[in-house]
């Protein structure tokens, strides 16, 4: 019921704001964009996002597209440069046949281009940008299938205190918006929970050598080392070098580390007993995802944690577009209101996806895993309590 009201309200909002809502004939063509940093520093996770979205688009097209129209998936590379991110946004919003975008996955680029997408009512579903402010800014077009940092941070703090029974915590974070915010939210949570022995320092992603800062961690003698980096390979190096240095603290990694190849296998045993959190259950343990995993791995090689949400996001976006195109005409606000109305979408992530009024994932939980042998074992699910 709430959903319906929401959808109505959103439609009303557009009508009142006087935006020219031009509906297009579907047969003119359907474009969906993919904004991301496909070259430069963050190319690896972004390409995984692109490939997964491509997979979803291909599947839709194989099924005959939408209303018989084949969907075109357009790449918008911003090279991790916000100025180029704006160009991508302008390009997408100026494309009259573009009805939705997956991305941008990098928080600061999402921030830079938020307004442009918003002014043109072009729906965006990010799969990784977790900075809280993005959905707090009042724009209605921005959705995310990942949880926000503040929710995760608090859950992680709870987990460190209750499940890992830590008294002294070292937090290392990479200098990017997501990791930085995650570290701050966690520290905030820990302090609230009465843990004040916290060491916080930074790492440089991609430098592949964290031994100097880990030596410092070792001297601090923490119970838990919360290693906040974006990608699995960096965390694999972290856990490996921590082990080598003889750091006894429990290694606790982030979402990105839930990756059997690039974290467990890459650390060659060093990750044994380490913990990671994720916003979804283990993708390999979800029956619904097996087809996706199979076709992804067949086509693009190994999969980390960034692909599945992108696949899901593209499917949700296309579902909304499909719905909007039912009558043969389609407009951007229609897509947005359909997205807001998405309720309990059951895809491959292992939990039903719904969005709240801001566009955030509804009821986002944090799942905790422990590395055991070659597998992740789910040990806890926290929802802020």
């Amino acid at each position, binding site marked *: 019921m709430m959903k319906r009201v929401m959808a109505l309200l959103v439609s009303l909002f557009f009508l009142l704001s006087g935006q020219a809502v031009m509906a297009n004939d579907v047969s003119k063509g359907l474009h969906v964009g993919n904004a991301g940093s*496909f*070259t*430069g520093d963050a*190319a690896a996770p972004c390409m995984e996002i692109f490939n997964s979205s491509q997979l979803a688009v291909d599947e839709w097209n194989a099924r005959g597209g939408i209303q018989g129209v084949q969907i075109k998936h*357009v*790449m*918008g*590379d911003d*090279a*991790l*440069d*916000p*100025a180029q991110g*704006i*160009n*991508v946004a*302008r*390009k*997408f*919003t*100026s*494309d009259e046949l573009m009805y939705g975008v997956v991305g941008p996955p990098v*928080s*600061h680029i999402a*921030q*830079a281009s938020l*307004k442009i997408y918003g002014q*043109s009512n072009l729906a965006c579903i990010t799969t990784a940008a977790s*900075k809280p402010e993005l959905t707090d800014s009042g724009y209605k077009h921005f959705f995310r299938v990942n949880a926000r940092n503040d929710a995760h941070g608090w859950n992680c703090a709870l987990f460190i205190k209750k499940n890992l029974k830590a008294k002294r915590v070292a937090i290392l974070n990479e*200098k*990017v*918006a997501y990791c*930085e*915010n995650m570290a701050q939210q966690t520290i905030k949570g820990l302090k609230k929970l009465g843990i004040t022995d916290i060491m916080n320092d*930074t790492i440089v992603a991609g430098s592949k050598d964290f031994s100097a800062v880990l030596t410092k961690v070792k001297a601090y003698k923490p119970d838990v080392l919360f290693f906040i980096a974006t990608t699995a390979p960096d965390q694999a190096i972290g856990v490996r070098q921590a082990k080598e240095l003889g750091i006894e603290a429990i290694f606790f990694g982030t979402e990105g580390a839930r990756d059997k190849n690039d974290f467990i296998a890459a650390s060659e045993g060093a990750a044994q007993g380490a913990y990671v959190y994720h916003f979804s259950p283990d993708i390999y343990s979800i029956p619904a995802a097996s087809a996706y995993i199979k076709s992804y791995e067949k086509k693009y090689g190994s999969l980390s944690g960034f692909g599945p949400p992108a696949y899901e996001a593209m499917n949700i976006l296309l579902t909304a577009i499909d719905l909007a195109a039912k009558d043969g005409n389609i407009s951007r606000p229609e897509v947005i209101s359909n997205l807001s109305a998405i309720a309990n979408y059951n895809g491959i992530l292992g939990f039903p996806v719904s969005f709240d009024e801001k566009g955030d994932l509804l009821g986002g939980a944090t799942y905790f895993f422990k590395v055991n042998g070659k597998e992740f074992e789910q040990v806890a699910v926290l929802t802020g309590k």
Partner: protein
Amino acid sequence: MKRFKPRIKIGPTSVTILFFVLSLAVIPRLLPDNYWQSIFSITGVYVMLALGLNIVAGFTGLLDLSYIAFFGIGGYTFAFLCSDHFGIHLPFLLALPICALTAMVSGFLLGLTSIRLKGDYLAIVTLAFAQIFKLLLLNLDAPINITGGVNGIYAFDQVTLLFINIVTPENYSVLIWTCALLVFLVSFRLKASRIGRGWNAIREDELAANAIGINTTRMKLYSFATGAMIAGFSGAVFVSFQDSVFPNNFDFQQLVIVYCMVIIGGLGNIYGVIAGAVVLSILPEILREYGGLRMMIYGVALVSIMALRPQGLFSAIPGFTKLVKRPDKDETGELRASTDLYYSQDKDETDVKRYTKQAIPLLEIQNLTLNFGGLTAVDKLDFCLHKNEILSIIGPNGAGKSTLFNIISGIYQSDQGKVIYKDLDISAYKPHRVAKAGIARTFQNLRLFNELSVIDNIKISRFCRTKAFFFSAIFNLNLNKTEEKETHETAKKILKMFGRRLTGYRYDQKVSQLSYANRRRVEIARAMATGPEILLLDEPSAGMNPQETGEITEFIKELRDRFGYTILVIEHKLNLVKAVSDRVIVMDHGEKICEGSYDDVAKNPMVIEAYLGKKGKSGNQTNS
């Protein structure tokens, strides 16, 4: 032969400006959508950035790798001044100059520490500064949040100009291109001014620039700061357009792109640089959908352009440079020999004042000594140069003659002794102060500004006699107008003394295209243009044939007789020495071995020995 039309160019023609303004008005309306309008705006920002870098790297030849940091300083200053971040909300038109000034001051301070470093070392230090700057942007969010760290700063105040809210890309493109036009005009005015000429001189030959009276350290600093100011200005406009600012905006890669624009456009070539900026801003957009392939193409293009068109893609395309037909070639392409032997058309005037040597000492060298490692290049030298005298210094190679010139002109510092000019002790003067005081020199191995035209080479020399500073040059105030006119006329007047060899179409010829003898003449003309009292001529006739030597001999005499210069000349050709000298000093092994009139000196057995070597092995065997 087409007559040379005297014209002082201080800015683009009104047609060019009209063209720009029209483009500004029309292009945004022609662009299909917001996307292309936004590309158009970003292109404008890059044009500004590239023009700014063109001043530093193109005009002055400094390899400044911190340029992007000034772009960032401008951007962040704007973010501080026009957002909720610090709660300061300055109006756009006030914030803009503050940003530019902040960047300029930073550039100036940074320059102070490193401007003395040469070439690659300057590049490295500036690169290190740029890296530090970026790290500070990333990390200065704790303990006090200054830069916003990785989150950057976003949501700036809306820009309102003349009651128009600048919101849409179309508004912005007009705003940005107006700014770009401003930068273009400033850049053009500067290039055509004495300041621009000074920078060009530094790029071509720093030492020679210093020796004709340009304070090279200071001018390099100004160039650095001007570049920084333009970068800061563009930075402010840019972040306002982006409505957010992040450390990633100021990556090394960004700098590389701007450098590519400048180099592909052709260093120092304003129109070329603009074209380079436009092409390189639009090309990546066309290739955007191809991800990695795009950058591969970029790389290959860069390498091939460097190999195939090292002067830049737009260096010789009609419309960007003038192609001048050489009037000294006949129909078959053979060089037509100049038959003009005289240095001055109007030498027959009878009532001109003739100067002769006066018994007033003008330049005194006292006990001058300089050691290079183990070698004493100049050894306790004493002599005096009188007003309106022509004094020749002769001696074998390695006798220390050129070293003496280098000491007088301030390039070397002597170990002992003094150089007194009038009542001034100029021993410790830097070359530009010596030149300004009134002593000009030529170089034995020719140090002309080879890529510049003949007339520009001469005009540069007026630097130390003119005053127009940035403000005056940019706004072309009266001071600048008079000085430019005066500079142009003086340059022409001086070149005229050399007859057709250096006038007419030769005004605009590049010095590197001249014959050796003509380059010698330009070198002398350049020294004369600094308005000196004393001329130090280092082998003025080297590389000239007998006819030309005769001509230059006459000319040197005329310089004193008619124009009243006091001349100290190093020369090997004794018939020249004989013809011009009031007195001759003979040097050997850094010492003065003899002094007197030419005839006295020529008869002196010691001179014959030093000059022609000892007669066989009859000399004493004094093995050490």
